[in-house]
């Protein structure tokens, strides 16, 4: 491949090609029909829609379910989909949605106000008998009321501004009452997930492959999309191919047209053959390292600040990743709502870092490890397997910290130990963290004690936390969830970003994309707001 071509390809990718292919390059006529072969790295797990955050699950759910609203991935505006229109009261405690008429689930049942109400009652309150847990994106949910067959009203105990965006996420995908009547432990069978989406799962070999077929009667895609009516493809075949080299080899050999999970170091191999890398952003909380200040070792602000300035995110991105993984400039992605550039506070400054550690009383001991009152500054973190090259990232952070005399042990461990120890600040003073969602509510989800609680504050699931709690942080997070004025809400989002960095609770490293590689034959391959694939408008050009 010539250099100029490589540069051109790079330039196209840098311009955000994934979102503009349809408009910019749609010169050739759309070819209808054909089966798309999609290679997935891991098998999906339970497909209860609120568990749709897991990348393999969202790849399936996004094709088979519709959502009440559509979040435009370019503008992040909320647009009509299954809901034609909606109204919200001034306090954001009551929402009324008008449902589009004529929508049906693939089992023939109507998608009406009653079905929507039942979906959100389940996601908002959970179902004890059937063991369905509450959805992460729906908070303060009180109940629903079916006003007429196509009008539904939701009530909240407290102002819940994030709910409107919450109706657009994959985790709020609408499913048939039959699906909701099944116990949680039976929802791992994709053929049992009955949605109203453009594709229907027609068969599945658990853990190996699943086949989706287009719904020819589908005519209720998001109203403002260029593509309308049934999908262009006849179907999609998902094949689980765990081995990286086999996925890439099969793509390049023409045995598949799109693959998920391409590591940064494999990108060049794909581009060299004129295949395309798509790396849509996940627009949420950046891939970061967070502290658990309940642990005495990192309770001191100066220690955390020192480690923040000892971390060279630029080196991590340059060594392990590619241009598709931009260096973080805040705790949330630059493509996220309310983002504020805080790079001035995130400088790599080993001299300052050493000074701060000295001031905090941690002096370099005989073995080169800093100590204070006979205790060594030795920290531990578990790798997070779903994050790209997370082990390598943490190991590089460990090398950077080691230069200052701080030891970071990176553990792999089995899932049981990882989850148990991650809830214990004494065992994991440091942890990797990231989450994708295109609403400022994501910051609250990530840091608030009763939700993801990445800092391990008191009041969460962990019983190991002694005292740590930050009322100021929690106050800001609650305000984001309740503030109805968009401008004021964005101001709060800015405040919380600055506060988390000033307190050095988190060290943001890079903005995490979800990386795909595809054949040049695949056209109009698009992504929803947080980088999950959508094949609704996709089509395959002739060979």
């Amino acid at each position, binding site marked *: 491949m010539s250099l100029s071509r490589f540069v051109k390809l790079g330039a196209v990718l840098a311009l955000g090609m994934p979102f503009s292919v349809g408009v910019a390059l749609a010169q050739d006529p759309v070819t209808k029909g054909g089966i798309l*072969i999609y*290679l997935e790295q891991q*098998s999906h*797990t*339970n497909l*209860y829609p609120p*568990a749709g*955050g*897991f990348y393999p699950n969202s790849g399936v759910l996004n094709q088979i379910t519709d959502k009440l609203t559509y979040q435009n991935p370019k503008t992040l505006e909320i647009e009509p989909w299954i809901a034609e229109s909606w109204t919200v009261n001034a306090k954001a405690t009551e929402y009324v949605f008008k449902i589009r008429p004529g929508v049906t689930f693939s089992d023939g049942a109507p998608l009406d106000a009653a079905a929507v109400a039942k979906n959100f009652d389940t996601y908002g309150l*959970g179902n*004890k*008998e059937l*063991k369905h*847990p*509450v959805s*992460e994106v729906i908070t303060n949910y009180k109940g629903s009321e079916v006003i007429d067959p196509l009008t539904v009203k939701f009530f909240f105990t407290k102002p819940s501004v994030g709910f409107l965006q919450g109706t657009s996420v994959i985790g709020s995908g609408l499913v048939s009452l039959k699906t909701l009547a099944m*116990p*949680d*432990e*039976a*929802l*791992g*069978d994709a053929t049992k997930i009955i949605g109203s989406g453009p594709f229907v799962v027609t068969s599945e*070999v*658990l*853990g*190996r492959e699943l086949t989706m077929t287009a719904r020819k009667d589908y005519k209720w895609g998001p109203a403002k999309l260029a593509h309308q009516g049934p999908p262009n493809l006849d179907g999609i*075949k998902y*094949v*689980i*191919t*765990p*081995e990286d*080299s*086999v996925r890439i*080899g*099969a793509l*390049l*050999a023409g*045995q*598949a047209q799109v693959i998920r999970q391409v590591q940064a170091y494999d990108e060049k191999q794909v581009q060299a053959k004129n295949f395309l890398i798509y790396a849509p952003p996940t627009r949420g909380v950046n891939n970061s390292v967070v502290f658990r200040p309940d642990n005495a070792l990192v309770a001191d602000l100066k220690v955390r600040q020192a480690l923040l300035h000892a971390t060279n995110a630029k080196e991590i991105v340059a060594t392990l990743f590619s241009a598709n993984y931009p260096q973080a400039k805040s705790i949330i992605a630059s493509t996220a709502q309310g983002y504020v550039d805080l790079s001035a506070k995130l400088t790599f400054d080993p001299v300052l870092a050493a000074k701060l550690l000295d001031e905090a009383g941690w002096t370099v001991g005989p073995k080169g490890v800093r100590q204070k009152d006979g205790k060594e500054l030795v920290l531990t973190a578990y790798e997070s397997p779903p994050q790209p090259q997370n082990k390598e990232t943490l190991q590089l952070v460990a090398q950077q910290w080691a230069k200052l005399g701080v030891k970071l042990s990176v553990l792999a461990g*089995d*899932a*049981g*130990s990882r*989850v*148990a*120890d*991650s*809830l214990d600040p004494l065992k994991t003073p440091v942890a990797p*963290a990231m*989450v994708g969602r295109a609403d400022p509510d994501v910051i609250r*989800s990530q840091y608030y004690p*009763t*939700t*993801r*609680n*990445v800092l391990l504050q008191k009041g*969460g*699931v962990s019983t190991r936390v002694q005292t740590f709690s930050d009322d100021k942080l929690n106050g800001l997070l609650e305000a984001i969830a309740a503030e109805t004025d968009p401008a004021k809400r964005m101001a709060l989002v800015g405040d919380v970003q600055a506060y988390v960095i000033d307190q050095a609770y988190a060290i943001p490293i890079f903005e995490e994309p979800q990386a795909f590689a595809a054949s040049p034959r695949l056209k109009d391959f698009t992504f929803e707001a947080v980088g999950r694939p959508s094949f609704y408008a996709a089509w395959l050009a002739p060979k």
Partner: protein
Amino acid sequence: MARYLLGRIGQAMAVLAVTFTAAFLLLQVLPGDAIMIKFMSPEMGLSADQIAEIRAAYGADLPIWEQYLRTVANFLTGNFGYSIQAGVPVSQQLATNLPPTLLLASLGFIVAVILTVALASLSNMTGMGWLRSALQSLPSLFISVPVFWLGIMLIQIFSFQLGLVSVISPGPVERLILPVATLAIPISAPLAQILMRNIDEVLTQPFVAVACAKGASRGWVLWRHVARNAVLPTLTIAGVLFGELLAGAVVTEAVYGLNGLGGLTYQAVGNHDTAVLQAIVVVSALAFVTINLIVDLLYPVLDPRLSRKIGATA
């Protein structure tokens, strides 16, 4: 013979019961369980109360002995429970994963046996010394080839470069060609090594010299006199290896994207999916016990001296 069989079946049942209990206890000792891993993971964003409710609904808050009795009762009625992580009944997982594993393991094993016999007989039949030593050193090569490397090489060459077989959407037979080769090559290695060494040993026995002196050809001696004596230790190893194949060809499955017990076990271990592991342990134990029983019953068929011994002890 009937008493012997009954005794052996009784033994097998005891082994199964002990395995079941040991597996249950060991799974309890591990830190955390499937419910914790799934629902307490921060991605779910659940509160402590919500998790407690879910634990209660799954019966995970009951005392261990009560959980044990429930599990035993369920197993006896054929109810293996649900996989918490995958969200499907364990019986459905077994139904999807056991047949392909059985097929792959059996074919891999058969091809391995053919390879073994071919290697052993060729190396003993050939008059050419260099060929003989080349053939005899093949097993050492086979055993040192890492399975994942072999698998990826076969795919790269035969599927991606030459385009002879598809790995992504293959036909039912096509699907098996490369994985069977990947499995058979390393499995044939220890079998061939043992068989060759035993043949060499038996060849030094006096009765071989007698047979040769009577004018028997090399092939005749090898097949009629030597093979029968040399095959017994190989059979024992073969039984063990086949059991291992059933318990999972994890690497082969992962490379070829095949579903099977290996991958299922790997995932269930990672997620502490107790119900799945419990079922897999029982199925694997059952397979081992059955294969050993078959091997034991085959001994007297091959060597009449052993049947008298069985008669004396039973």
